């Protein structure tokens, strides 16, 4: 899988967020909708399903005038974030774009974790630091902005928790009434952010798929911009910016592998579209030509897409009652499942389903080497990358990027009782002497030492820090 790489190009100057935003809705190259299943073209409108086969629609672009261009002239002067890539997004006003943009996330080499797992060029795209702690801030930004452009009086979503907070955030920014429909049983830590941001939470007595169905019915009764129902074609475009930003941070040199969590399959599908569009534009440098292979990862207990990948029929069999610690991936009936399947196969990638134990172990490995606490969706991706390395699917020198899509504080209980994975808190009197001996800090000094090898992609690392 390894390919020879040219030295990373000098970092692009990225202006700080406080700079003047220069966006124009007319700059968007969105021109139509097309069916992701049968390819039927549809005029630009607020519709979600194909007239021919009822498959999901996606945004189509007329990139003609941009093909063969360089990215720098297009992007120069724009702040980093979702709306930086506005040619490849639906059109909204500059004011809406500036108001809703959640900003960029960091990409950095995971040198210590990579050393532990036998990967010399492992990178992590850390979406945990976005405003509501997950990548859902990206699609929510685009969809809620579109809801304002399309005149919806209210917004909402069906959610396993992350999208609820992300939608509520943009709704608060744009003063939209907001309702979020969730399955019962989500932890408070997933619901409280949405409530604090002003959303009304509707708990459905059932699974996420039941919440989804209710959202469909609500969209029939009321004119409400449900971001992943009535605005879904635009919503998924926001997710695409995750890979566009990653590519730019890597100097437009596509990595060998990208690990993506699979819930509905929308993020992985959007990742494939982003890669394809960057390739079509001619923005990708490097010898790989934009040929990243995609690793799709679902946790055991909810694996309809992974099962289909490994089945002879390729048919997706919905999972009626998902049972997984990765509740953000507990989508039994994945709306973009077939598109994701094609994207994985088309990229010569792989689909994998790690166990809960492997997911927990990966979460702790990351936390204790790279200082990032992720929720199980990120742990699922990391566990699959580790497995792929152990099975020899990844070479030591492959450049691998893991999409870490959500923060660990949202799901504090998934690791099990702290007694199983952490030392218990010491309870001591204020004047206790000899505390350092009690703590045994000298025994753990090795944990704080530098990795034995420098990052192999030190030039690229400097570029990322410039971001």
């Amino acid at each position, binding site marked *: 899988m390894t390919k020879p790489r040219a030295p990373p190009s000098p970092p692009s100057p990225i202006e700080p967020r406080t700079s003047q935003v220069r966006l124009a809705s007319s700059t968007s190259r969105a021109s139509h909708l097309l069916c992701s*299943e049968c390819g039927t073209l549809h005029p630009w409108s607020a*519709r*979600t*399903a*194909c*007239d021919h*086969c*009822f*498959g*999901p*629609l996606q945004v189509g672009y007329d990139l003609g005038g941009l093909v063969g261009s360089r990215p720098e002239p297009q992007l120069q002067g724009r702040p980093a974030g979702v709306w930086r890539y506005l040619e490849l997004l639906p059109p909204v006003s500059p004011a809406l774009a500036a108001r809703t943009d959640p900003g960029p996330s960091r990409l950095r080499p995971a040198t210590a974790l990579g050393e532990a797992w036998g990967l010399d060029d492992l990178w992590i795209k850390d979406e945990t630091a976005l405003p509501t702690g997950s990548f859902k801030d990206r699609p929510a930004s685009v969809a809620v902005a579109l809801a304002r452009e399309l005149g919806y009086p209210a917004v909402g979503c*069906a959610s396993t928790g992350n999208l609820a907070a992300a939608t509520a955030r943009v709704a608060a920014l744009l003063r939209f009434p907001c309702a979020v429909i969730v399955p019962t049983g989500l932890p408070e830590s997933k619901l409280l952010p949405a409530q604090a941001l002003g959303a009304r939470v509707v708990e459905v007595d059932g699974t*996420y*798929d039941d919440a*989804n*169905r209710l*959202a*469909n*019915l609500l*969209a*029939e009764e009321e004119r409400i911009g*449900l971001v*992943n*129902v009535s605005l*879904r074609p635009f919503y*998924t475009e926001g997710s695409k910016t995750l890979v566009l930003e990653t590519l730019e941070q890597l100097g437009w040199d596509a990595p060998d592998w990208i690990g993506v969590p699979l*819930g*509905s*399959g*929308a*993020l992985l599908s959007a990742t494939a579209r982003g890669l394809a569009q960057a390739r079509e534009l001619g923005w990708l440098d490097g010898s790989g030509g934009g040929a990243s292979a995609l690793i799709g990862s679902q946790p055991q207990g909810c694996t309809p897409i992974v099962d289909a990948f490994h089945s002879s029929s390729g048919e*997706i069999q*919905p999972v*009626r009652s998902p049972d997984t610690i990765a509740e953000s991936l507990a*989508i039994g*009936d*994945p*709306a*973009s499942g*077939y598109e994701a399947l094609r994207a994985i196969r088309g990229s010569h990638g792989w689909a994998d389903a790690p166990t809960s134990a492997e997911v927990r172990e990966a979460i702790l490995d990351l936390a204790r080497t790279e200082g990032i606490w992720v929720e199980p969706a990120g742990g699922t991706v990391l566990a699959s990358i580790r497995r792929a390395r152990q099975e020899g699917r990844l070479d030591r020198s492959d450049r691998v990027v893991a999409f870490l899509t959500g923060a660990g504080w949202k799901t504090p209980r998934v690791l099990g009782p702290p007694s199983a994975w952490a030392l218990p808190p010491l309870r001591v009197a204020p004047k206790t002497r000899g505390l350092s001996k009690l703590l045994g800090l000298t025994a753990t000094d090795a944990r704080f030492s530098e990795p034995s090898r420098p990052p192999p992609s030190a030039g690229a690392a400097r570029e990322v820090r410039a971001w």
Partner: protein
Amino acid sequence: MVSVHFTSALRQVSGGRSEIDVGPFQGDLAGLLAVLGEKVGPSLGQRLLDDGRLRRFVNVYVDGQDVRYSGGLTTPVGPSATVDFIPAVAGG
């Protein structure tokens, strides 16, 4: 009386109607589609079925239960059932 509902994205197959009262009926979903075809036109079955099976992106619920878990086209439809046709393109 069996009551059949189509969400807006699927109304092109129901002649633009959001609700159709089928009248007295008892049988299975395949039989119901045949009756609906008589009321709306043969295109209904042609649009909702693909190679004799429900299309991938059409979800059907009989009394709130997803028919993919209850036998698909052989799902029983009782005399007072409510049947919903909803596109499967939401979520995530």
